[in-house]
């Protein structure tokens, strides 16, 4: 669970929530959201090409803009297994973790190309490439617990003893 492996898709800085999930897709049912994943980005056909477990790599301030939780929901639904970025906008990062989509903070500029197969350890923050190991920021114990539970709702259910 804490080691994830997948194919990389590389994006730039300031990928805002409109690029991740354009405003016009907000009217869609939750089940349809994955079809619009990254539709406003530099890879508009991302949703058609992404495979289960793929990893998004980005620069700074990923997920800036609105607090729409539908943005990480669309990525997760499309199969994205992890997002690695230089930094995240706070609300996006929390939304992603809360719905069970892991995110890792790491500087990867110039080290990873789209299509590379990479491996990331959420506990240590290490990112293992073919010929290098990058050091990211390990997830906090609290965040790991939420990810392991499969998201905040499951975690709250466990903590409240609801079943």
């Amino acid at each position, binding site marked *: 669970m804490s080691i994830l492996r997948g194919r990389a898709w590389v994006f730039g800085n*300031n990928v*805002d929530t*409109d690029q991740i999930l354009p*405003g016009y897709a907000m*009217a869609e049912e939750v089940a349809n959201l994955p079809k619009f994943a990254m539709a406003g980005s530099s890879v508009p056909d991302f949703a058609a090409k992404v495979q289960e477990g793929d990893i998004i790599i980005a620069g*700074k*301030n990923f997920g*800036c*803009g*609105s*607090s*729409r*939780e*539908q943005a990480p929901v669309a990525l997760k639904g499309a199969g994205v297994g992890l997002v690695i970025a230089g*930094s*995240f*906008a*706070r*609300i996006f990062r*929390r*939304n992603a973790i*809360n*719905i069970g989509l892991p995110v890792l903070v790491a500087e990867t500029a110039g080290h990873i190309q789209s299509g590379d197969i990479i491996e990331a350890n959420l506990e240590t923050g290490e990112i293992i490439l073919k010929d290098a190991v990058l050091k990211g920021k390990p997830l*906090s*114990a*609290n965040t790991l617990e939420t990810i392991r539970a499969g*998201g*905040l*709702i499951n975690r*709250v*259910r466990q*903590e*409240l003893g*609801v079943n």
Partner: protein
Amino acid sequence: MNFIERYLAKAAGLDSVQPGQDIRCKVDLTMAHDVTAPMAVEQFEQIGVSRVFDRNKIVFVIDHIFPAATVQARNAYWKMKDFAAKYGIVFYEKGEGVCHQLLAERHRLQPGQILIGADSHTCTAGAYGAIGIGVGSTELAAAMATGTIDLEVPEVMQIYVTGKPAAFVCGKDVILTLIKRFGTDGLTDKAVVFTGPGIQTLSDEDRMTICNMGIEAGAMIACFGGSELEAEVAETVPLALETLVPVVACPHSPANVKPASELEDIAVTQVVVGSCTNGRLGDFKRVVDVLKFHKVHPDVNLLLIPASKTILGEMEKLGWCEILRNAGAVITNPGCGPCFGAHQGLAAERDTVLSTTNRNFLGRMGHRNAKIYLASPATAAETAVRGVITAPGTLPAGGKEA
């Protein structure tokens, strides 16, 4: 500890906290609106508890699309209505105003209170010393069930304020100037606090405008403290209010800020004064002061959107609505209006909008090619009269433009 840490420690039931520490805090108030509440309701139902943590501490507001502009918006209303009826929570459903304004007007915000809102501008509450934190729908649903939230204690960036702003410099100019300085992610995950003798010259309304846009620099919390310097903070930046000038954020970023005086040949087709950022009485006073003597330019729509029914009522009592309408302005019902591009004044490809709202991202108010400039109500008022971006104080008061 600084005051943010003291507030958070108290809410967590701890003697002390430090930056980076994970804590679980009690929440004093939670809020969601017609865009974020429907998903929060679904997530709450997934949890499967039979009651909310405290029905008096959960506030739902219909403000983003009221009256409903689409069937979907009306369905959001029904989802919230059913939830409100089932759990007995507080529900503003008749266009009472924008969520952040209603929290300030009707829920007596207090220093140190923990307020969780499913809206990124929840930080507005920091004008009253409250800790307002914007979250997504799932986190709000969890807080509605448990009455707690897990937080990481933020580093504190202190803005130490001195002096007094010049006559036409507004709270909006203060915060836009700071966003330019820090950039749109310069305060990510941090708390920004305002202290120093200069804060005494800023009204509650100015403080709301300033805290409101803290999120535009990525801040987790924006909050006013006292006149004294806080010692134990990560960083302190001095701000001398008398050095500020009226500024405008140019397309397509709130950090793309320039002095209004450098933008004077740019023609506008629509001017918007309103929103949770600048839709209060003092903001409309700036507009009335100008429209008492001047008419809105024939090529400009001037849309005025009061942030609450209470504010609109005051405007009526003062006789302002008549003055504003006679000068050519349109006053809409209280709410979010066209701020996030859902209804009541969208911009087309050919439009250039000058707005007192908080975001000028690509496509925020309609078409992607529409240009959006952000400025204070004082700048907006004179711009609406001249039809080109105008630094406030340009028009003669008490007479017609030559």
